[in-house]
């Protein structure tokens, strides 16, 4: 655990706690394992990325088909962020989440480290009228988790009737559809 940014990839306590809390809400991890996940976590601190990866590994090991689980975890994370965290005050609507998440308040605010390690999370294409967007993600996070984060973040305000995010053939491109 560290208070200082370093080149090593680190994730903010809020992200780690959100991820762990979502796993507990969905009963993906329970009992002593769950307690261990959040024990000694502090919201304001930075933690090695490996700590988040360890939780992700628990999910991957436990489920033969972990994709739908990670999508759901991402959705619940963002639901909690919107309902109980700062989400409601910073989003103007579901579609604006894409700009928020790709801007300085989103990915960049909860992950730090050398650029070549933490990667990027950018809007490649955005058409509000047609309800289409493409996100280019080179982050080390699971793409299923990122899909869940995008779906959950766009759905949370409740103004969109339809939200879906699929990975393209090149899985670093996430195709969003929202209406």
């Amino acid at each position, binding site marked *: 655990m560290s208070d200082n940014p370093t080149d090593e990839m680190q994730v903010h306590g809020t992200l780690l706690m959100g991820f762990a809390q979502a796993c507990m809400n969905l009963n993906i991890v329970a009992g002593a394992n769950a307690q261990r996940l959040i024990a000694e976590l502090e919201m304001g601190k930075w933690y090695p990325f490996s700590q988040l990866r360890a939780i992700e590994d628990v999910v991957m090991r*436990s*489920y033969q*088909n*972990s994709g739908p689980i990670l999508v759901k975890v991402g959705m619940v994370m963002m639901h909690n962020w919107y309902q109980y965290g700062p989400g409601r005050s910073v989003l103007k609507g579901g579609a604006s989440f894409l700009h928020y998440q790709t801007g300085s308040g989103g990915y960049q605010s909860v992950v730090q480290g050398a650029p070549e390690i933490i990667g990027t999370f950018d809007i490649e294409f955005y058409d509000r009228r047609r309800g289409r967007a493409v996100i280019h993600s080179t982050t080390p996070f699971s793409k299923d988790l990122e899909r869940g984060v995008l779906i959950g973040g766009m759905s949370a305000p409740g103004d969109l*009737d339809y939200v879906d995010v699929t990975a393209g053939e090149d899985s670093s491109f996430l195709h969003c559809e929202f209406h």
Partner: protein
Amino acid sequence: MTLEEVLAQNDAELLAKLPSAELARLFWRYKGLQKSVERDNSFWSSTNDNLKQAYEKLDEQERELARTYAIIQDDLSVAQNVQRALLPRMLGEMSEELELAVYHKQLTEVGGDYYDFFRLPNNRYAIGVFDISGHGVSAALITAFLKAQFMQVMEHFDSPQGIVEWVNRTSFDFLREVRKYATVNLVSFEPDGFRYVSGGGYGMLLHNNETHLFEKKNHFLGLRLKPYREFSLPFSQGDLLVLYTDGMVEAQNAAGVDYSVRRLNNLIIEHRDAPVQEIVDRCVADYESFRHKDFDDITLLVMRKKGNP
């Protein structure tokens, strides 16, 4: 009119009044719900697979437990045979002087009740009844240890006091270390009587028309390093001597009432003239009709002094 207003009025015919933009919203809301159900189905399907895997793992662990249990049962069965083989047979002079019947039942496969017949240096014999604290394998191991101790000392002492004190002294540290202790009832037979040391055991002599209960002023083996007191009683033709552990008398019925020393002793006194095996059988039958369940190992020895051969 908006989609929300149509839905609030719960009237499908109002859909015709919706403008195209609201109809498009209805389309996307329907598709959105479909997508949401699809995602939920995928999630629950993965969860279901995970549960299936967990059940399969549980099944495998149950089979493993069953295999381990079978091995333990086999081991216990061997231990039970060993413990049975360690039980004594009547010595020649004993069978000439005594009619003896024994009821000996361990609560589990192996146990901590133990009785033994010993030959003494003066060509007489002794009977010992012991109850090691606890049950099961640990108690059974202590019985083997105590048997070895008694076998060793019997070659050197004639008196129950000397024997018990020696065993207590040499076993004390070991018994303290393994946090075990044992009741003791050791009786050495003379031509016209017997001497005994009783530390926690139960004994009763029916001599002529008198009833003598064993003095229980001594301590258990392994509890204190203090001298033991020895007592003597007459033992004539037709007298009945009974030695037992607490397994029977401390067992309870469904209402929580003890079977009790008094009930057992009275039953024996009532049938004092019956053959010793019949006395034992009556005691066991009465006990079994009373007790809710066995709670401890049980040992009951009933012996009658025969006439001179």
